[in-house]
């Protein structure tokens, strides 16, 4: 599996990893909501709120490199959207405040994902009476996400090893064809999965 970098640290062992998933989920959502509710005049509260996630990150032994890398991956999107604030008068302070607030929420959510296996989160959703069809869809999506990413990379590698042309129009058509075939393979896989699910007594 080549795409395991997406979800690598959620199964480490630490006091934080051993906490029930529901507790961590509620804590993260509460923290994000509180951060969103802080008005611009009370910006110092952000510093207070950022203490718990930093402590949790230290205790959980998720590598700092991973956390920082994920932040760096997502920050450009946030900055691009927040940069619109710089266009309006006295937007500089608002820009910095928004950036700080969003980064805090971002860090919290990355930490939640890094300390909680997704299956445990799904169990919590099931307990919260989220419709079973949605939970099943999410579970299957998580299970086959990595399989399909691998499959698309295999298709791309096979194609690249057979062609020398690298014009833009051509590469668009090739990539779109890969997407189309990926869907067909996914739908055929879904058929096989259904048979397998029935063989194991689903429903």
């Amino acid at each position: 599996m080549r795409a395991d970098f997406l979800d690598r640290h959620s199964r480490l062992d630490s006091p934080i990893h051993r906490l029930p998933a529901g507790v961590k989920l509620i804590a993260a959502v509460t923290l994000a909501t509180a951060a969103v509710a802080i008005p611009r005049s009370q910006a110092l509260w952000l510093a207070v709120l950022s203490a718990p996630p930093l402590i949790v990150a230290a205790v959980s032994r998720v590598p700092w490199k991973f956390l920082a890398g994920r932040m760096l991956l997502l920050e450009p999107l946030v900055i691009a959207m927040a940069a619109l604030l710089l266009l309006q008068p006295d937007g500089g302070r608002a820009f910095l405040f928004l950036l700080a607030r969003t980064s805090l929420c971002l860090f919290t959510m990355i930490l939640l994902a890094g300390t909680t296996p997704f299956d445990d989160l799904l169990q919590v959703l099931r307990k919260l009476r989220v419709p079973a069809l949605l939970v099943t869809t999410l579970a299957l999506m998580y299970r086959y996400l990595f399989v399909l990413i691998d499959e698309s990379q295999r298709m791309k590698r096979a194609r690249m090893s057979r062609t020398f042309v690298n014009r833009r129009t051509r590469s668009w058509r090739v990539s779109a064809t890969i997407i189309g075939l990926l869907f067909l393979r996914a739908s055929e896989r879904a058929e096989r999965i259904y048979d397998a699910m029935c063989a194991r007594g689903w429903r």
Partner: protein
Amino acid sequence: MHIPDGFLDAKTAAATGALAIAGLGAALRQARLRLPARRVPLLGLSAAFVFAAQMINFPVVGGTSGHLIGGVLTAALLGPGAAVIVISAVLIVQAFLFADGGITALGGNVFNMALIGAVGGWAVYHLLSLAIKGLPGRLLAALLAGWTGTVLASIACAGELATSGTIDAASVFPTMIGVHMVIGIGEGLITALALAAIARVRPELLGLSGHEFPVAPVPSQPSAPTCPPNAFRRAVAREPVGSLVVFGLLISLGLAWFVAPFACPWPDGLEKVAETLGFGQKEAEHRAVPAPAPDYKMPGIRSEGVAASVAGTAGTILVFGLAWGLAGVLVHKSTRRRPPSDPPRENPL
């Protein structure tokens, strides 16, 4: 277009959350009632497919690259109801697993991309492919629908950011919509190209018979399609009118609430003519029935933006109710189709 945490204020987050839950709930209910059990894994696999497809990069000018969003592609293949579930699942996983898109903004993201982007784009796709038959029609429809879906979603997104007071309407609307008018071209092209690739192998997935094709379908498929031609589409893509009505209502409510207050304040054509010719005053004096909400502002509400939002929402509900009632009177009872009962589940043993 994923809105991060902190960009939506509490009231906008709550309103979009309610709209998203209503839309996703309607789609899930419909799927539970009508989707055959055999198709349930397809939803999860399609969601994984959209995620994987979003990781395939398309080179754009000079070093930059873009990727597929996939709402219209999913809706064209599976139908709008299934697309709402699939795109919502993608957004939920992106928010929880990769912190891409905020947790408090999840409702807004689901509303923008699953409801407005996918269902709105699908409406364009569906109408155009009814108008122009055959594969060229489908591809042209996909091209335009991909663009429309992306731009519509960006309009809603800009409206939410402006309603929240995060960014001024004057800067967020032109930038957001301008950027997505360019991104939409790529989305439309990729959607059309991907559908063309699918049509070459399995034309029945697009509701086309194989004969319309100049290219023969690929003959050797070891894991041959296990369902007869068209069964796939029959099972997934035919959309009951009921859920379409719910989606349409939710989309118009959202647009009335988030976008209508920022509509252009200049007088429209008729008002301009009336001003020029000087019969505007006269018209006001001779009004037969006093308007309940003059100039789309609800009386008794102080804030101008909220007044326009409330008036817009109330108007939407009113017009919707009238249209629904009229349709009930005008459509003859016998022409209404009864929903077919669920096909019995096949026993694999």
